[in-house]
């Protein structure tokens, strides 16, 4: 892995992105506690911000992202509009998808956040097609797909790795191993401790990284993206991290040993990085504070925007099923 010192601007950006994601998601968690405030299931990625910020920051604009049910960080790191994102999460008409995606199926094709599926394990198959299209068109872009340790048990992930391996597609598999799939811990649903090693069975380089170290993720992301971009074929990253808030906002996490939560809380990717940046003199307390305040202000504005937007009206209820609706 390339271990060069990152540019301070980039470091600031990585920190800012993580903070924005955390602030954004903590606000959603707060809203979820107001009964009836947030429709649908809200699934957050607190604790996993470094994977999203690190990996997405290593991408080029032409690169395509396929996400899953824990997508907010991926979208925010890519620069999705906060207001339209929050409105969509609230299932409002001015949301990025007009209130037809909700929190689980967000997509922003303009930013090459091509698709988000909440069918666990579906992402890698969708990514296969996207990466094939890039190869077919001779594009310099690659496709990155995020999926969980639980998803790694779905047959789809295997089929995607095999075909990507045979065709040498520019496809970067990013497995966010957050130690849990619903209420099942890794040992209970996964026959290996090292998911990344499976990649070797498909002639794909597999690597693992501390998913709470944003720079490590960024560096490995850059390296593997370059590998894919060079035409050598797919690559696989397993980012070891932790899901701090339970599976979703209705999950009391009572099956988790509190000591485990404490241990991982101590490894908070944001606090850890803040200490590093302060120590390295990249940022000072005032700058840090302003980053946090900025995030809070933007998130508050997004909530206000979402609140002000109405639910989608009857006019879009039947539309968008087909591009060319049946004329008969």
């Amino acid at each position: 892995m390339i271990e060069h010192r990152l540019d301070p601007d980039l470091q600031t950006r990585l920190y800012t992105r993580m903070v924005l994601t955390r602030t954004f998601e903590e606000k959603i968690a707060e809203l979820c506690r107001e009964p009836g405030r947030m429709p649908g299931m809200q699934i957050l990625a607190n604790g996993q911000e470094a994977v999203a910020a690190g990996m997405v920051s290593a991408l080029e604009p032409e690169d395509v992202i396929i996400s899953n049910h824990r997508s907010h960080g991926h979208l925010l790191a890519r620069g999705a509009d906060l207001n339209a994102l929050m409105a969509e999460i609230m299932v409002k008409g001015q949301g990025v998808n007009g209130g037809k995606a909700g929190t689980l199926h967000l997509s922003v094709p303009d930013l090459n956040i091509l698709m988000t599926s909440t069918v666990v394990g579906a992402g890698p198959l969708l990514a296969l097609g996207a990466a094939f299209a890039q190869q077919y068109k001779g594009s310099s872009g690659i496709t990155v797909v995020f999926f969980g340790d639980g998803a790694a048990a779905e047959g789809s992930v295997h089929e995607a790795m095999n075909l990507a391996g045979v065709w040498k597609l520019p496809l970067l598999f990013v497995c966010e191993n957050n130690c849990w799939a619903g209420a099942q811990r890794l040992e209970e649903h996964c026959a290996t401790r090292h998911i990344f090693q499976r990649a070797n069975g498909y002639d794909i380089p597999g690597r693992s990284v501390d998913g709470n170290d944003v720079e490590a993720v960024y560096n490995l992301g850059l390296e593997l993206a370059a590998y894919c971009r060079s035409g050598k074929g797919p690559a696989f990253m397993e980012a070891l991290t932790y899901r701090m808030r339970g599976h979703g906002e209705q999950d009391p996490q009572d099956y988790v040993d509190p000591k485990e939560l404490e241990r991982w809380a101590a490894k908070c990717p944001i606090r850890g990085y803040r200490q590093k940046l302060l120590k390295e003199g990249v940022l000072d307390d005032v700058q840090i504070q302003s980053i946090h305040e900025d995030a809070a202000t933007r998130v508050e504005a997004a909530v206000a925007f979402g609140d002000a937007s109405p639910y989608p009206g009857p006019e879009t209820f039947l539309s968008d099923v087909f591009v060319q609706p049946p004329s008969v």
Partner: protein
Amino acid sequence: MSQKTFGQALNEALTIALEIDENVCIAGEGVGVSIHRDPNMPTHGLLEKFGRRRVKDTPVSEAAIAGLAVGASCMGLRPVVEIMFFPFITLASDMLVNHAGKLRYMSGGTSSFPLTVRVKAGVGFGAGCQHSHNLEAWVAHSPGLKIVWPSTPADAKGLLLSAIFDPDPVIVVEDLMLGRMSGDVPAGDIRTPLGQARIVSTGTDCTIVTYGAALYTVMEALTSLGDRGISCEVIDLRSLVPLDKEAILTSVRKTGRLVVVHEAIRFCGFGAELAAMVAEEAFDALKGPVKRVGAPQIPVPVAPTHEKMFKPGPEDVVTAVLGTMGK
């Protein structure tokens, strides 16, 4: 007899089955340790009571869960597996449709597959079309599979017990929108026979056939229909395959009219079979068009406004009944 929620009734059925038959075992994603510590969960407390040998949490592998059931049932176990939400049944559909439903026929009757699949259905919890997609018509079109859809806690218990001890594969649909509804549930090992519909209310002007949560939409419509002096006979199918054709035909021969109501998409939905069957076998009795109430041919939307439009309401039932009378 005591008041139980749907979830508690299902839980009671699973408990009884595990108690009375050592060959019964439970498997699925989170059927043991769950993200919901909720006594309304059908599998609540089973792991604690019966242990890890009989209550198996699985990886997120729907095809494997179904394969497990097919293989284990062929060896004489009575596996009860869960596919979390109806749209995920796609991932298990090769195992269920091409294997559970067909292997007995191809074995020439030497093998059998006494398995049960529990699956959650329903529209209205805001998760959208990848979690909500009622596919009972798919199952019903697959030979060798039975499918039941209880609408009361008592039937939830009785049908699940019948399914588990049926010698053939049965899909048991659990309607999410009924999860917390309660009702009288008889104690002990009660069985609701597969293939017997329930006449919920008798009437003379129009037969309404329905199942699952849609029953309550129909019941809401009855008042308004009664106000107009229209008397409806309501049939809760309970079991879609085997289908209680006689109950439907007898009623339609009496009322001369049929309305079918379900929450699935109308186009090619299960209601189409009912309507077609009646138009074929009770045509002479029909006094007016057969009407179907169901969802439009679009994915289940996420917005509360859209979800409400998607789901048939009592007013749609009223309109349909009036429609059969040319009103």
